[in-house]
């Protein structure tokens, strides 16, 4: 394959953001097209380099081609849309029925969500699987919050009164759990970001809401406070916030334009998050609500920055393999 064609296909691949199997098919088809066209021009007397350059130019900008392909392939069916929104609806039900108070219900719900998330992951990671994966990762991440609190409190107690409030085995368990769960979560997140950062953001939608709920819960005195009526009254607002996530996810799945999808997530979710936070902290100032929205926005954008970082690392790895520096193209490349 010519260097020009490699550069073109590489640019196309980066802009496609589709299922890897679909991407491979598309790249192969475009490669065949360019080679056919170039061969025909060579048969007409054009030089190999010129014919390849002309054949590539006739396809147009790889970003435009990728945009068209994305629009053709990205709209989810109604069934997949419903499936993608389902974990938000289920979690909203847990809040509206106050089922969080029951360990058994939480265990059943989490086992179901984890099973569907793992099944989606193992069967080619269709777009509907990402919200399920998000909730699957939410529990290990939420446990970090309590693990760090336990470690900090344990260390403080050890320094001040010379003993730890929990058995040593618990602390050892936490020390083993943290790096292990971190490596699993980060490996999943990196693989999703490599596919498309916006899918990682879709996966991460519940995190700000669960995080805010945990902070609120902790502020009210921890899990024992959950059984008080006052705390349970806020569940309806959490449930409404999660239903808003379900609606946003459904709209996201039915959209075909990538920029509209990005706009939807980055505008709707921070606003919903600020409203849910306001329901927890009704005395919150407008400035603090804006600050919370900005934090949520930054969190949802973080996969984009991680993707740029991963691309940068890949380019330099590619440079080590091929000897072509990142950004360097043959003189006559499109």
């Amino acid at each position, binding site marked *: 394959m010519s260097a020009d064609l490699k550069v073109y296909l590489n640019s196309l691949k980066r802009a496609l953001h589709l299922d890897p199997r679909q991407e491979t098919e598309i790249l192969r088809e475009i490669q065949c097209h360019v080679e056919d066209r170039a061969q025909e021009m060579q048969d007409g007397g054009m030089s190999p380099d010129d014919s390849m350059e002309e054949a590539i130019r006739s*396809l147009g900008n790889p970003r435009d081609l990728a945009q068209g392909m994305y629009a053709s392939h990205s709209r989810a069916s109604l069934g997949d849309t419903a499936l993608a929104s389902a974990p938000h609806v289920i979690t909203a039900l847990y809040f509206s029925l106050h089922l969080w108070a029951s360990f058994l219900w939480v265990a059943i719900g989490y086992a179901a969500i984890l099973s569907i998330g793992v099944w989606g992951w193992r069967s080619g990671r269709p777009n509907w699987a990402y919200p399920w994966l998000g909730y699957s990762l939410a529990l290990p991440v939420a446990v970090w919050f309590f693990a760090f609190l336990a470690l900090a409190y344990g260390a403080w107690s050890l320094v001040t009164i010379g003993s730890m409030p929990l058995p040593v085995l618990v602390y050892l368990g936490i020390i083993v759990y943290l790096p292990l769960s971190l490596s699993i979560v980060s490996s999943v997140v990196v693989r999703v970001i490599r596919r498309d950062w916006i899918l990682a953001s879709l996966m991460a939608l519940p995190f700000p809401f669960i995080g805010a709920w945990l902070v609120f819960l902790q502020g009210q005195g921890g899990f024992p406070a959950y059984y008080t009526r006052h705390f349970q009254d806020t569940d309806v607002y959490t449930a409404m916030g999660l239903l808003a996530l379900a609606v946003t996810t459904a709209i996201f799945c039915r959209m075909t334009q990538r920029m509209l999808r990005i706009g939807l997530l980055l505008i709707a979710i921070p606003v919903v998050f600020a409203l849910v936070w306001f329901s927890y902290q009704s005395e919150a100032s407008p400035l603090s609500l804006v600050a919370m929205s900005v934090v949520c926005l930054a969190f949802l954008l973080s996969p984009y920055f991680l993707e740029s970082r991963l691309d940068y690392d890949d380019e330099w790895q590619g440079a080590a393999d091929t000897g072509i520096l990142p950004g360097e193209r043959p003189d006559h490349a499109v």
Partner: protein
Amino acid sequence: MYRRELLKGSTETLLLSLLTLEPMYGYQMVREMEKRSKGYFRFKEGTLYSALHRLEEDGLIDGKWQTSASGQNRRYYYITVKGQNFLESLQEEWKSFSQAANMIIEPGIS
């Protein structure tokens, strides 16, 4: 500009009509379209593939990798039954539209 707009609105009809002749691969369709329209229709090639993949997603055509007589592996597109039924409705619509348009554009002839 006007021609581009007309072509944009007729892309599905043209591609499906072409595939009723025989299964074709992308580049073959570009050449065939130019040849049959005596150079009038020149597809922007990137747009062609987006349109083909959209038709395939809608179940109107089906793409299969096959080895051609020259030994090259290419993705051939076939029109499906759903595509044929859809094309018939498009052709009906096109006939009605062109007759109505002609009655206004060329009143003397119609």
